[in-house]
């Protein structure tokens, strides 16, 4: 009887704490929202205030939610949700709100130069489908992504084979080979812009030395060459990605498998196709899809080297949307383009996630 009484008191106290937290959270949210709206409306807001004000309403929501949890949950469940709530709220607010907002403005005509913003429902999507430049951008996106990732796969898997055994200098080379991945894509793009330069660049010079004829290719002046140059630049930066992941997969294979293959008299070639590749399949698939999704979103390298040129011959979908949205300020139209992009990426990443879930 007394024990039950104690538990009741304890529960009541916890509930009280929860109510207090929720109330405080609500208050914090209101104060924060007011502050935020004041900062938004003032002409020259204080810099520190500008940086802090968006965090206050967020903290308020989190505190409010945690209060509710304290009221309703106990023990393990309380700990679990109490810890996870801030992050869940954060992702929800910062991802869901903008996404819904994008969907909303994709139905209106919103151009910087036009004062009215009429509701036009699917017209932006219709324009998107009819626009020849969109098709061109999509074709370039696919072409660059697929050819870059295909080359990266072949080179990366081949290189990983060489690293599966110990040899002198292995650790040093491994360190060098993973440096490209850590570099800022903008730095990579800029470096290659110097290297591909027609007159002062090293690539034309090296090609001249190899072929024996003076080579003066204008890499960024020709449609095909520009696509090749961008693809190779991406290959340089991201082959190490496939290489490193494949290597991890290779090292995880049970050596008995290879020994059994050797006893059965399999050649190196047979072993690779019949043993190594099938076992590596899940790892390779993960690496491939990760790379493909990233390659569809290339921006920095193209922006700094060709900026889509010559003409629109290297313009990919991200660059196209960037120009429509931020240079021509066609917000409604580029929102429609963004929604299409989101759907496409969600479809591919669902596939990737299903595969990760299985491994």
């Amino acid at each position, binding site marked *: 009887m007394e024990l039950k009484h104690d538990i009741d008191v304890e529960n009541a106290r916890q509930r009280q704490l929860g109510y207090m937290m929720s109330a405080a959270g609500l208050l914090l949210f209101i104060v924060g929202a007011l502050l935020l709206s004041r900062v938004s409306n003032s002409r020259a*807001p204080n810099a520190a205030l*500008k*940086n802090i*004000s*968006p*965090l206050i309403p967020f903290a308020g929501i989190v505190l409010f939610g945690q209060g509710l949890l304290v009221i309703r949950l106990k023990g393990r469940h309380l700990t679990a*949700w109490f*810890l*996870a709530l801030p*992050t869940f709220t*954060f*992702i929800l607010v*910062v*991802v869901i709100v*903008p996404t819904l*907002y*994008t969907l909303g*403005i994709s139905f209106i005509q919103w151009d910087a130069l036009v004062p009215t913003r009429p509701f036009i429902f699917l017209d932006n999507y219709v324009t998107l489908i009819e626009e020849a430049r969109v098709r061109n951008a999509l074709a370039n996106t696919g072409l660059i992504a697929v050819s870059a990732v295909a080359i990266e796969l072949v080179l990366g898997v081949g290189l990983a084979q*060489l690293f599966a055994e110990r*040899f002198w*200098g292995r650790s040093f*080379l491994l*360190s060098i080979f*993973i*440096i490209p*991945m*850590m*570099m*800022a894509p903008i*730095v990579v793009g*800029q*470096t290659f812009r*110097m290297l591909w330069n027609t*007159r*002062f660049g*090293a690539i034309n*010079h090296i090609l001249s030395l190899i072929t024996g004829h003076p080579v003066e290719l204008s890499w960024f002046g020709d449609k095909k060459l520009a696509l090749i140059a961008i693809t190779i630049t991406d290959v*340089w930066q991201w082959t190490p990605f496939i290489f*490193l*992941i494949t290597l991890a*997969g290779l090292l*995880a294979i049970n050596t008995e498998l290879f020994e059994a293959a050797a006893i059965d008299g399999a050649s190196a070639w047979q072993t690779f196709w019949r043993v190594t590749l099938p076992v590596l399949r899940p790892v390779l698939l*993960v*690496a491939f899809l990760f790379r493909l999704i990233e390659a*569809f*979103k290339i*921006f*920095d390298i193209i*922006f*700094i080297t060709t900026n889509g040129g010559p003409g629109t011959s290297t313009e990919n979908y*991200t660059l196209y949307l*960037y120009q429509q949205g931020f240079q021509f300020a066609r*917000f409604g139209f580029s*929102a429609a383009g963004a*929604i299409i992009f989101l759907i496409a*990426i*969600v479809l591919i*990443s669902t596939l990737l*996630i299903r595969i*990760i879930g299985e491994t």
Partner: protein
Amino acid sequence: MIHTVTPHHRWQIIKSGFRYAILLIAFAFFAFPIFWIATTSLKLPEEYTTSPPIYIPQAPHLNHYTRGLGSQEGLRALRDSVIVSVGTTALTLSLGASAAYSMARFRTGGHHFSFWVLSQRMMPPIAIVLPVFLLYRQVQLIDTYVGLILLYTVFNLPLGIWMLRSYIIEVPVEVEESALVDGATRFQVLRHITVPLAAAGLSATMVFIFIFSWTEFLFALILTRTGVLTLPVLISRFFGTQSFEWGVAAALSVVATVPVVILGLLIRRHFVRGLTMGAVKQ
């Protein structure tokens, strides 16, 4: 065993020679651009505008570094990059670690939720930055540290949560439970058991988040004007039509690259896990 040159032996030697030949080509391919940017930063302006190009600077000098970092802009970019990257790392880690712990130990939100978090990483940045730009304009968050940090955090959280989750799962749950039975609070368990045991993973995760924020360009390009300037944005500005600034751009590129490469090489063992968000372990 009798040591004679058997056909097998000969094959081994050929194979080894073949391996080093390919490795040499691969080394040249990967190292050359790094060599090029490093030497360009040390060249005289007339040395990087000659045809045929000069590979080794004849009179290496540090003028480009003093000009790049000595200018107000260079120092500011370095400072702002540090502020934004450190801020993102701190926020992502504090939000991500508690969520990761909760998901690893209590399966909070279940299977579907954790994969939904993962899918946020795949979002095309251009699709997110458009509405964020319009919303930020409303609340005056354009050109602020916190605006950039919030967006970077949301893009890094999936990585942070998944990486940390995979490390926390490796800490045996029995150790934690026996401490709990002995009367330790959850917080004490975290502080004295889980965090020390997952310390290597925690630092690897931090480095990964840091590298992503340090090298990000698109968001910074769109969401900053004059108040905040990160290194990638500054470097991109050196490429107008004139090529005279190649040296300064190269020097700034080296400055932007060296810290992340050092950090990255320190956590080399964790690289595969970071790249695949814990899906593939090394």
